[in-house]
């Protein structure tokens, strides 16, 4: 079935450093979403990308959807301790079938 590979699994950064997580699919995606889960919390929706080559920004977060709609990235500029958590990508693999990446766990050292 459809799968998405998300890398890296873990990332440790010093506060102020940048961070990027990637999701890659072998098939073309209709859209992709990104979620953040704080430690002890539940996943919370960040953004949805639909168009080929789309780039969206939310303050220090930049989201990209590849031209071929097979990959996506989330980049955080100048990380802060509030960015700690696990970031998931998710896409719709068909009607009502939602597929998550394994997640990237971000640790930020002050």
């Amino acid at each position, binding site marked *: 079935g459809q799968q998405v590979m*998300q890398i890296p699994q873990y990332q440790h950064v010093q506060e102020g450093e940048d961070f990027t997580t990637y999701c890659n699919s072998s098939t073309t995606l209709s*859209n992709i979403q990104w979620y953040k889960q704080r430690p002890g919390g539940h996943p*919370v929706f960040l953004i*949805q990308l639909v168009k080929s080559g789309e780039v969206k920004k939310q303050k220090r977060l930049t989201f990209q959807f590849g031209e071929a709609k097979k990959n996506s990235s989330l980049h955080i500029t100048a990380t802060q301790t509030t960015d700690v958590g696990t970031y998931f990508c998710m896409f719709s693999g*068909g*009607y*009502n079938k939602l597929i998550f990446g*394994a997640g990237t766990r971000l640790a930020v050292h002050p």
Partner: protein
Amino acid sequence: DVKVTQSSRYLVKRTGEKVFLECVQDMDHENMFWYRQDPGLGLRLIYFSYDVKMKEKGDIPEGYSVSREKKERFSLILESASTNQTSMYLCASIPRRGQGNTGELFFGEGSRLTVL
């Protein structure tokens, strides 16, 4: 605000017990999901329901069943709990959309189940 409420944040049960995890959403969403989350494995879909009394198996349905008698409520049932079902269980809901335009998935706070 959309709210997805799970009945218990923490449960401790014994092997062989029957376990009910309840989930209620207040936004009239057609689709509801049960996931389990384990370290290193991400979120894995157990079951989902796209309408009242309708259900479909996800990727890991073995050992679980579900019930959707009312639109707002989706229950996960462990008929005979086992230690390998110790996990975090997350309920989620989403309104019905056309294919390719999924919309935002709303999660409950999660239920952490420990089976001894």
